[in-house]
C-alpha cells in the first residue's frame, strides 16, 4: 500500500512518567492481579472464620507489637518514598540515590520485623486451618515485601553505575509507585490478622 506521511512524531520525548509510560501500566496490571490475590486470601480467611465456631482455633491471637510497629514504619515510609519520587521527577541524581538507600534500609528493617511477627503469631501453619491461613497471608505479603526490596536494592546499585541515565528516573518513579501498593496492602491485612481474632 502507498504510504502518506500525515504527521511527524520526531519531537516526542523518549520516556515519560506515570500513565504516559508503559511500565507504569504494567505495574498497575500486576498490582490489580496481586491485589486480587490478597482479596481472595482475605476471602478464604473470612470463610474459615465463618464456618468455625471458635476463632482463633486452639491459639491465642497474635502479639500486637510486631504488626503495629510495621504499620507505623510503613506509614512513615511514605514520606521518604514520596521525596524519592519528587527527586526522580526533578532528575536529581544525588537525592534519588539517597532516597533509594533510605528505602532499601526501611525495607530491610521491615523484613527483620516481619521475622519477629512470624515468631509472635502464636500458632503454627500445621496447628489448624486458622494457623494455615494466617501463615499463608503473611507469607504472601512477605513475598511482596521481599520482591520490592530486591527491586529497590538492584535499582539503588544501578543508579550508582554509568547506567543512571535520564530514563532510569522513570523506573525509580515506578518503583515508588509499587511501594505504595505494598504499604496499602498491609493495612487491611494487619486489621485482619491482628484484630479480627480479638473480636
Amino acid at each position, binding site marked *: 500500500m502507498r504510504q502518506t506521511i500525515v504527521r511527524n512524531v520526531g519531537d516526542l520525548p*523518549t520516556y515519560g512518567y506515570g500513565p504516559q509510560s508503559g511500565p507504569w501500566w504494567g505495574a498497575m496490571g500486576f498490582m490489580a492481579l496481586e491485589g*486480587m490475590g490478597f482479596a481472595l486470601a482475605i476471602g478464604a480467611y473470612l470463610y474459615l472464620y465463618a464456618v468455625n465456631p471458635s476463632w482463633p482455633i486452639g491459639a491465642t491471637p497474635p502479639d500486637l507489637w510486631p504488626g503495629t510497629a510495621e504499620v507505623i514504619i510503613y506509614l512513615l515510609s511514605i514520606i521518604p518514598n514520596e521525596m524519592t519520587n519528587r527527586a526522580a521527577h526533578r532528575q536529581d541524581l544525588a537525592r534519588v540515590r539517597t532516597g533509594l538507600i533510605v528505602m532499601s534500609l526501611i525495607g530491610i528493617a521491615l523484613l527483620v520485623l516481619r521475622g519477629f511477627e512470624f515468631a509472635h503469631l502464636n500458632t503454627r501453619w500445621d496447628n489448624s486451618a486458622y494457623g494455615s491461613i494466617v501463615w499463608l497471608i503473611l507469607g504472601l505479603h512477605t513475598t511482596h515485601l521481599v520482591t520490592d526490596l530486591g527491586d529497590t536494592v538492584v535499582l539503588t546499585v544501578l543508579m550508582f553505575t554509568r547506567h543512571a541515565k535520564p530514563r532510569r528516573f522513570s523506573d525509580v518513579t515506578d518503583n515508588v509507585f509499587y511501594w505504595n501498593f505494598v504499604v496499602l496492602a498491609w493495612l487491611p491485612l494487619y486489621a485482619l490478622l491482628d484484630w479480627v481474632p480479638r473480636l
Partner: protein
Amino acid sequence: MSMMAEQRELRDDALNGLQLSTHMESIWRTPSGFSGALMSVDHKVVGRRYIVTAFAFLLLGGLLAVLMRVQLAKPESTFLSADKYNQIFTMHGSTMMFLFAVPVMEAFAVYLVPLMVGTRNIAFPRLNAFSYWMFLFGGCFLWISFALNVGPDVGWFAYVPLSSLQYTPTKRPDVWAQMITFTEVAALAVSVEIVVTVFKQRAPGMTLDRIPLFVWAMLVTSFLVMFAMPSIMVASTSMILDRLVNTRFYDSSSGGHPLLWQHLFWFFGHPEVYIIFIPGTGMVSAILATFARRPVVGYPVVILSLIATGFLSFGLWVHHMFVTGLPQLGAGLFTASSMLIAVPSGLQIFCWLATLWDGRPVYRTPLLFVIGFIVIFVMGGLSGVMVASVPIDTQVHDTYFVVAHFHYVLIGGAVFPLIGAVYYWFPKITGRMLSERLGRWNFWLAFVGFNVAFFPMHILGLIGMPRRVYTYTADMDWAHLNLLSSGGALIFALSFALLLANVIHSLRNGALAGDNPWNASTLEWATSSPPPPQNFDRIPVVKHRDPLWFDNESLPVVAGLSAERREVLLTSLAEAEPQIREASPEPSIWPLLTAIATTVFFIGSIFTPWAVLWGTPPMAVALIGWFWPAGHKEDEE
C-alpha cells in the same frame, strides 16, 4: 539527550521504500541460528510458537478423548483399566483447559493484537518470551509425569478430599496443582502485556471506538484472566501446602473445609469458560465482518455485551455447586445470574445474525465455521439455561448431560471459531492460503462428527449415565448411544487430521496470499504476509473504524521514529494521541534462563519446602540479568 545527539540519530523520515524496509528489518529481526531462536522477543515468533504448541497439546488431548471413546464404545470393555481411565479423563480435561483452550486464545492475541492496533511489538516482549517458556515447560512437566505413570487422576478440578494426601498419597495431585501454577503464570503475564499493548500502543487515531472487535474481546478476556486466575493460584498453592507441609486448609478435623476448595476453584473455573469463549466471539466478529462484506451490526452493543459478560461471569461460580447443600437464597441468586448472562450473549448473536442478513455473505471456509459456531453454541446455551435451574441441575448433575452441555459450549463457542480463525489468518501468518476444498470437507466432517459424538450424550445423561465411569454393564441399555457417540468422535477426530493435512500441504503448495487476500478491513492486512519483523515500515494512522475499507489505496502514516534502534510509539489511553517514542527491548536469553530457574523452583517445591530457599537465588540472578541494562542503544537513552 542533547540536541546534537538528537540530530545525529537516523529517523525513518530520512529513508524511503525498499531502503526503509531493509533498514527497519535489520533492527527488528530475530538473530539467526539456534541461540538466536532462543533469544527471540518478536511477538510473531513467540505467538507462532504458542499457537503450534497449543495445537500440539490439542492433538494429545484429542487422542486421549479417542481412547476414552474406544473404551466406552461397548459395555464392560477392558481396553483401559480403571486407573488408566482416571488418569486419561483428568489429563484430557486439564490439557484441553490449561494447555490448549486458554493458551491458544492468548497465542492468537500475542500474534494478532500488535498487528491489529498498528504497533511493532507487544508491550513487555521479554515477559512474553518468558510466558511462552513457562507454558511449554508446564505442559511438558504434566505430560512427562503422565508418561511416567504420575499423571493426575483426580479430575480437572481436583476436588478435596479425594486429592488430599490421605486419599491420594502419590504425587499425582501435586503434578496437577503445579502445572496450574506454570500455566497461570504464563497466562497472567500475557494478559498484562495485552492490556498495556491495547491501552498504550494503539496507532495514532485509533480511539476507543475504533478498536477492532477482536482486540476488544482480548482486552476483556485479559481482565478476566487477571481477576480470575489469582483464585486458582491461591487454591493450588494451598493444596500443595496441605500435601507437603501439613497445613489444614481442607482438613475438616482441624477447622478446614472442603467447600473452600470448590469456592476457590470455581471462582476461577467459571470465568475460565468466558476466558475461552470471549476470544471466540472476537474471532467470530472479525470473520463475520469480512465475509458478510459489511461491518458488524451494533459495534457498541457488541462491546458492551463483552464487558457485561465479563462482569457477570464472576457471579456464576456457585451454580457448579448446587448439589453441595447451599442455602436456598444463594442458589436462587446464582440461578438468576446464570440466566442473566444469556442476555448479553444473546445480544451478540442477534448482532451477528443481523450482519449476515444485511450483508452479502461469501461462504468461504472461515464463515462456514462461524455458522457452525452459531448453531452449536446456541444449542449449548439452551442446555446451559436448563442446568442453571436448581431442580434440573440436581437431576442431571454428574451425568453425561453436563458433558454434552459443556462440550457444546466450549467446542461450539471456542473451537469452531478458532478453526475458522486458523483458515482466516493462516494466509497472514504463513503467506499462503489453506486449501478451500479440504476446508469444506474439514468443516462438514467437524460439524457432523461433533453432533453425532455429543448429541447422544444429552440422552445418555437423561437416562442416567454418570460421568467419569470407565465402563458400564450391558443391562443399562447405554450401549447403542455410546457406540454412536464413539463413531461420531472418530469422524470428529478425522476432521482434525484433515486440518493438519491441509496445513502441512498448504505450507508448501498453498496459493500465495498477498497482503489482503480476503479484502478485510483491519490493520493486520495492511502489511505483507507474513509480516516483516518490524510489522509496519511506518506506524499507521487510523481515521476510521475499518481503515482498509475507508481507503484501500493509501495508508496514512506517522514518521519520525528512530531508524537506529527499536522504538515503538506510545499513545494516550482514550484518544490515542502520540505521547512518547519508547524503546522496545532487544532479544535476550534471560527470559529463557529465568523460566528454567523458575521451573526448577516449581518442580522442586512439590518435593521439598526447602526449594523455596535454594530455588530463589537462581531466579533472582536470572531476573537481575534480565533487567540489567546491557548497554544497547535503547537502554542508554
